[in-house]
């Protein structure tokens, strides 16, 4: 969710040449070119970076949050809208004490074979609890978060979903948030 507010080309003017593809930044050179060919204008390109905040207390005293684009959600919650042609800009709260077998995945755009057998490969809720119990971090936020990565309006995502999730973590008084793609 790194985006730029300034000097951002409009979506329709973005093309492959504007997508960063230098080998030193891209672990899989050419990947963004392929994505941009399939979904023109859907990539977020940032010219400016927001500096990561510096920790002001030991990690072992921090409250850790987690957010993922995996579409993992509690069984019984409204399934993510995986059919919508321009994406779903909502998120789900997953209580951090939710048993792994009470989670399900609603997403079509990544291989879920591994995650269907062990959700921790995309949404490591059990491992996060173990890490907190071991004192690596102080505790987990009351809820962990999830949304789906299929969003065809990066600007809308930035200004609604990303802001909503950031607000939610503020309310959770998270000190640190681990964000993971799927």
């Amino acid at each position, binding site marked *: 969710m790194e985006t730029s507010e300034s000097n951002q080309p409009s979506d329709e003017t973005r093309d492959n040449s504007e997508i960063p593809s230098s080998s030193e930044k891209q672990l899989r050179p050419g990947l963004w070119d392929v994505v941009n060919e399939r979904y023109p204008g859907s990539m977020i390109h940032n010219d400016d970076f*927001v500096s*990561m905040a510096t920790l002001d207390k030991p990690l072992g005293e921090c409250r850790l949050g987690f957010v993922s684009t995996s579409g993992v959600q509690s069984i019984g919650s409204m399934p993510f809208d995986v059919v919508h042609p321009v994406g779903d800009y909502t998120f789900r709260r997953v209580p951090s004490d939710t048993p792994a077998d009470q989670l399900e995945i609603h997403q079509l755009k990544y291989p879920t074979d591994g995650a269907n057998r062990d959700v921790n490969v*995309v949404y*490591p809720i059990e*491992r996060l609890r173990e890490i907190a119990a071991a004192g690596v971090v102080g505790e987990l936020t009351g809820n962990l978060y999830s949304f789906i990565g299929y969003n065809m309006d990066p600007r809308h995502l930035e200004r609604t979903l990303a802001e909503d999730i950031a607000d939610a973590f503020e309310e959770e008084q998270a000190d640190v948030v681990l964000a993971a793609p799927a």
Partner: protein
Amino acid sequence: MGHQFGVPFHKELQKDVIRACLELLPMTSGTRIERPFPKTWAAARREGKVIEQMLHDES
């Protein structure tokens, strides 16, 4: 894709990935840090298969 924290049932690997991320935090003086994870996918998959076989044998 779909395996950001390793392979199924490999609990230590999954925790190692999280720990590796968290260990970067005290170093965040700049805007971008990339550090290769000290294990290859081939090794992770091999270990995962052994773990799954063990779980299968136990059950």
